[in-house]
């Protein structure tokens, strides 16, 4: 069942009011995540990638579009109807310190979930906690310790244990490595990979670190100013990037190989309160033409499974 789609997002839209203006945080975002695979969501800060994640989990409600979880549209269902779905989806945040209650032992933090969903007896819950800690590489004897007694990497392992506690199928990883030291990041990457293999987890992996995303993902969506500008399988996206933003983004990433970026991206992302007319990338785009300032390009499939929202790429075909 490798090709079954677990998450499907259709024309998702979210605006946040700020004063009298509206921040166009997410604008017409669509993609699919296949079961057991990882979609990497990349883009610069403020491009809306975390908002997309919160929308999918229904931590916030969209202003438009649909979220389809395992074939069922959960966009507008009631909180009560949503509860069984909540059990199937989890999130691991960037900063483990602020996502673990400092006044609870790690055992209690994990056990809380079983209580919420009425699972198991006291003894069973205790046993599950130990198994989970063991699984993520934390000595179960420390289950009565408090979060601050662990290092950053260990705290992130505890967050991961909590995320897999209910045997959830879908986990959003929102910059889970950013707060960790370089030498510890690889440990967490490995753990996420192992868990995916063993438990068949599906990940939405959000990161600004393209090297990490490349390592972990099966497919990748690139966001810019609330929109998906390119979306393809990993090999295709890195091997044959088509959108001018993706091209410059990839060449901005420093590499130990020491290649020098051939294109420097000028300027900075525009303000999402007042996005530019036409293509959101046009003010910075090295190859823009007239139409880019007038019309918003739609995400088109330019080759099998490779979607690009760019007038120039569409015209070339």
């Amino acid at each position, binding site marked *: 069942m490798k090709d079954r789609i677990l998450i499907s997002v259709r024309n998702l839209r979210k605006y946040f009011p700020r004063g009298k203006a509206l921040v166009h945080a997410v604008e017409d975002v669509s993609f699919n995540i296949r079961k057991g695979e990882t979609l990497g969501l990349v883009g*610069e*800060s403020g491009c809306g990638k975390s908002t997309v994640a919160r929308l999918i989990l229904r931590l916030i409600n969209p202003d438009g579009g649909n979220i389809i979880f395992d074939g069922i549209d959960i966009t507008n269902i009631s909180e009560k109807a949503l509860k069984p779905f909540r059990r199937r989806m989890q999130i691991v945040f960037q900063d483990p310190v602020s996502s673990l209650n400092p006044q609870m032992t790690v055992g209690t933090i994990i056990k809380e979930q079983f209580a919420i969903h009425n699972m198991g007896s006291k003894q069973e819950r205790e046993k599950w906690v130990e198994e989970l800690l063991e699984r993520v590489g934390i000595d179960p004897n420390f289950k009565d310790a408090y979060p601050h007694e662990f*290092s950053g*990497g*260990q705290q992130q392992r505890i967050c991961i244990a909590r995320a897999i506690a209910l045997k959830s199928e879908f986990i959003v990883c929102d910059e889970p490595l950013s707060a960790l*030291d*370089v*030498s*510890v*990041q*690889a*440990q967490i*990457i*490995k753990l996420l990979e192992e868990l995916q293999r063993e438990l068949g987890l599906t990940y939405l992996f959000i990161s*600004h670190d*393209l*090297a*990490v995303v*490349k*390592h972990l993902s099966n497919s990748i969506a690139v966001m810019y100013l609330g929109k998906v500008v390119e979306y393809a399988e990993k090999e295709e996206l*890195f091997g044959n990037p088509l959108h001018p933003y993706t091209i*410059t*983004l*990839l*060449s*901005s*990433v*420093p*590499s*130990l*190989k*020491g*290649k*020098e*970026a051939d294109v*420097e*991206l*000028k300027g*900075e992302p525009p303000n999402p309160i007042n996005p530019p007319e036409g293509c959101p990338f046009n003010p910075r785009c090295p190859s823009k033409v007239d139409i880019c300032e007038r019309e918003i390009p739609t995400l088109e499939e330019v080759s099998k499974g490779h979607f690009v929202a760019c007038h120039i790429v569409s015209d070339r075909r």
Partner: protein
Amino acid sequence: MELLLSIEDLRVYFYRPEGVLKAVDGLSYRLYKGEVLGIVGESGSGKSVSVLSILRLLPANGRIVSGSIIFDGKDILNLSREELRDLRGKDIGIVFQDPMSSLNPVITIGQQVMEPLLWHNLCSRSEAYERAKEMLGLVGIPLPEERMKEYPFQFSGGMRQRVMIALALICRPKLLIADEPTTSLDVTIQAQIIRLLKRMKEEFGMSVILITHNLALTTNFCDRLIIMYAGNMMETGRTKDILYNPSHPYTKSLLDAVPDIEVDKELIPIPGTIPNLIDPPSGCRFHPRCPNTMDICKEEAPPLFDIDTDHYSACWLYRRA
């Protein structure tokens, strides 16, 4: 090449309620005029503390307990407060990680960039204005004259970092210290800032110390690297030698643990965590996490051994029989 900075056996300790934290423990290195040195390490490696010591900008509980720092012929550790103030901002400029907290929120950008010139009495106010305007243009701020009237909050993160660079360079320092200058910035902006630093280096010819946790950032910029771990230098050498021919197990492990956008490889994590420097491991501080630990590593801290020309490694593996 002419020597600009020489640090010998520097030890910087922090006095904490829990004990004495040995942040930098016996660090020696040299920096030549016009050279770009990268100091690479994870948090707690002592990379920032080692350069803050050059400016004597340590927090109140931090003390330089031994060693010497000679900058441009001056013994930094024996300078008076006035002499130190002369040095800061004039001979040595610094750019910190977070440009928002380094700029004064209630003073205009123009004032702030002019300030070092006026403070050090280097020129008149009108000349300072002209030079600030020119410098802001040089670091890539469009319409510098207009933007000089604005405040930091009106600038984006990348633009603020450009302002910081202008500020650090306005007095034409002999040394520019850039302490994680791109860590809070997005990747396309990071590339812009590194390019800008390179261009400024070519323009003014000063020496640069770039402090970073990201090895890949050093490839196209640094002449030489120092790899630090837990307050000690692990390896030093020319950038290419360190990246393509690393000798220290820590450097090798670090390179194996970090994904690279250009290379598909299996990641090999480094087990364990960074040690607590109040009670650091005996002998080599990396030995509890090292794949090549020998008995001697637990007992004695290794000196620097010769690997190749200008390439040294603090590892017992390279002891000659």
